[in-house]
């Protein structure tokens, strides 16, 4: 196996349900590899299965059939704590984070590395500070997350994932609440993280323009079928035809 491949899907069928017959939101079996330093944009209409795929890729939802392999190990065989050091899924609309400051929230990203009583080392604090700086959250680090705007909150969620220091970063519509300059900045940062930290990034989005500009490959889920092509070739290969009026 190629050493730089971080995530591999083998004949993967994903969806909700225990068998192919019972499963809902089913996609046809597909193969896919995510390498270190690569950004893959995941596109598709609402309800096509983007989020389900991302949940399957991080082990939150079991594959209906086929396998997800993370750094050479089958997903089911990796202990949950070790898995949390390898892959992280960031969703923008989750449970409301009540009674939590921005710093507290970002600090949760260090939990996979914490001991029995969830303490944080000086190194953990430093990583949290770096993540806060990277996402330009210093100004409201001590404010309540619930008091922030949706866009600011998106950056907090992302900072938490970055503090987790995973190899594979999965993001579910991270720019849904961001303004145009911040969206651009986000995609630039994802690209920088992938290249500099040798991370693999899969980012689901509805921003076709950013997907073409900032990702290495584009993955499209359409009518239960998953297709993938180099970002520059996706349009020519017809992967983006569904976006036309």
């Amino acid at each position, binding site marked *: 196996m190629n050493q730089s491949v971080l995530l591999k899907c083998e004949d993967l069928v994903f969806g909700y349900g225990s068998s192919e017959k019972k499963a809902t939101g089913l996609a046809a079996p597909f193969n896919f590899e995510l390498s270190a330093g690569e950004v893959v944009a995941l596109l598709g209409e609402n309800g096509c299965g983007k989020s389900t795929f991302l*949940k399957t890729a*991080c*082990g*939150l939802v079991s594959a209906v059939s086929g396998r997800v392999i993370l750094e050479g190990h089958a997903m089911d065989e990796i202990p*949950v*704590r*070790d*898995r*949390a*050091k390898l892959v*992280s*899924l960031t969703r923008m609309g*989750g*449970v409301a*984070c*009540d*009674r*939590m*400051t921005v710093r*507290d929230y970002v600090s*949760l*990203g260090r*939990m*996979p590395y*914490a001991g*029995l*009583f*969830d*303490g*944080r080392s*000086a190194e953990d*604090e430093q990583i949290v500070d770096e993540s806060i700086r990277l996402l330009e959250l210093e100004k409201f680090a001590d404010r*309540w997350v*619930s008091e922030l705007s949706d866009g600011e909150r998106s950056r907090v969620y992302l900072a938490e994932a970055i503090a*987790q220091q995973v190899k594979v970063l999965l993001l579910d519509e991270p720019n849904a609440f961001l303004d145009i300059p911040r969206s651009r900045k986000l995609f630039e940062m994802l690209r920088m993280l992938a290249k500099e930290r040798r991370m693999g990034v899969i980012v689901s989005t509805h921003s076709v323009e950013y997907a073409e500009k900032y990702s290495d490959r584009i993955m499209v889920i359409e009518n239960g079928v998953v297709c993938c092509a180099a970002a520059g070739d996706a349009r020519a290969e017809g992967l983006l035809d569904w976006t036309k009026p």
Partner: protein
Amino acid sequence: MRRINTRILVAFVLLVSLAGLLSYLTIFSGTVGLSWSDLSFRSLPYASVQSQILWEIRIPRLVAAVLSGLSLAVAGLSLQTLFRNPLAGPFVLGISSGASFGVALSLLLGFSFGHFGVLSAAAVGAMAVTALVMLVAARFENSTVLLIVGLLVGYFIDALISLMIVGSDAESLRVYVSWGMGSFGRLTLDSVWVFALAVLVGLSLVLLSIRYLNAARLGDDFAKGLGVNVRRGRMMVLLGASLLAASSTAFCGPVAFVGIAVPHLAFMLFKTSNHRVLLPASALCGIVLCLASCQFSTVPLNAVLSLVGVPVVLWVIVRGGGVRR
């Protein structure tokens, strides 16, 4: 250099000092004045009436207030986190009703529960409901289902108790109603260790689940994503909280409001939801509240606690601090 939050430090020092002062008052103030000399090693027969009052009444009451305050506050906080419901408390799982059912069987229908009498009856009832809750928790992933089952079991048991009350005599009913008012005066020195052991086990189970509690605030999927074994964490917290609430109810009766109000009080003081801080903070607040209520020994315990608890919960709701943040 790691950050030390001054607010947290000051709040802890204040609460510990307050708990110390109230402990002193609980032991030494009252209708019979006691002094340090009465606090000599316990020996039978007692050297004086004062010494007997100290060892037979004051110290068991102090221990009951401390253990009960600690256990109800910790149980309340952990259940509020688990259910992500700021108004959940130790009794939402029907544990209090279970204990009341055991006591009603003993006092109203005359069933015998062995050496400890009413204590055993309450413990058996509370544990039976706890077992049922654990059974449901093992079967359903959804915490809301558990919450609904707990409330329904509570209503069902309350209805059964009502039926028992209808056919009971006035004296039995008086004793039962008196038990329902809660008291820190029922614990005897001989049974202190049983209470302490139950609290220790319950507390250990909750403390070992701090990672789960810190992550579970944001949902089970989020916790799984942070490498937390959600199923194990949930079972440990449920078992620990049930044990804490059940032991307190068994020894002190159904003590109201500590479980619901104290976690909010602790949050208002410490302004953090990190359970590494909030668990000891809630425990201390619970201890202080219960010790404070000991100073009004002539008024029923639940009346005192409700008079404090109701305004606190109302304040939380009106101010929105408990729900919004």
